[in-house]
């Protein structure tokens, strides 16, 4: 693959049952592109966690995935409430999710730590009241 490929997704914040559709689509595209299976797994897990977070905390948002020869870049941007304490949010087990979300199997405070665990680079830009943009890279 000599040129970069870019895929854009809009994440619906209203429907928890549809959360993960974008991650599923990206996983399929990467398979078709012949990307290494370990890298696909890392991208799928990290993006899925991010997508779930966007639905749980931020009423949806937008995801851009760029694939080059060297890396896969995921940019997840929302216009949610922002993260007041990023360091705390990165601790395993810390969660501000509602009880309803926990009953659906998420909100255990593993989302952001998992995203970091499965990616080679991760950067969080957040502004209270304006939103959060998370950039993650998986090297190929």
């Amino acid at each position, binding site marked *: 693959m000599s040129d970069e490929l870019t895929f854009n997704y809009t994440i619906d914040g209203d429907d*928890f*049952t549809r*959360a*993960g559709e974008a*991650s*599923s689509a990206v*996983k399929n595209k990467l398979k078709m592109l012949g990307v290494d299976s370990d890298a696909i*797994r890392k991208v*799928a*897990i990290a993006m*899925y*966690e991010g997508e*779930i977070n966007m639905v749980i905390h931020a009423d949806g948002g937008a995801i851009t995935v760029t694939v080059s020869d060297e890396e896969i870049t995921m940019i997840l941007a929302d216009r949610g409430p922002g993260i007041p304490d990023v360091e705390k949010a990165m601790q*395993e087990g810390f969660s501000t999710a509602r009880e309803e979300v*926990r009953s*659906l*199997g*998420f*909100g*255990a*405070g*593993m*989302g952001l*730590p*998992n995203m970091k*665990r499965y990616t080679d680079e991760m950067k969080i830009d957040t502004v209270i009241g304006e939103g959060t943009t998370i950039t993650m890279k998986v090297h190929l």
Partner: protein
Amino acid sequence: MKIREMQKVLDAQFLYGEELADLDVEFVFSADMMSDVLAYCGQCSVLITGLCNPQVVRTAEMLDICCIIFVRGKMPDENMLALARGKSIVLLATEHFMFTTCGILYENGLRGGA
């Protein structure tokens, strides 16, 4: 162990994927929190859970899990069955509780982690 053998020892019902029953599995993970599954599942190919919503199938898809076992008689709805069909993920349902399900599979040679 083949999925068909798991189905027999658990006295489980195939909800989808009987044609995939000859797939071999070795490592199993059990949890109701999908966050934990995503964090710790490793290379496990079977998920045992009492949670029953579409995100269970989505989580399995992201982790390349080939079989989900629903415990305590939980029954997925048509939406979940359609998702599983689309991803070729076998769905089993057993009346056993989580602990018993894990114990039976362990006794039959399956292990956790990877």
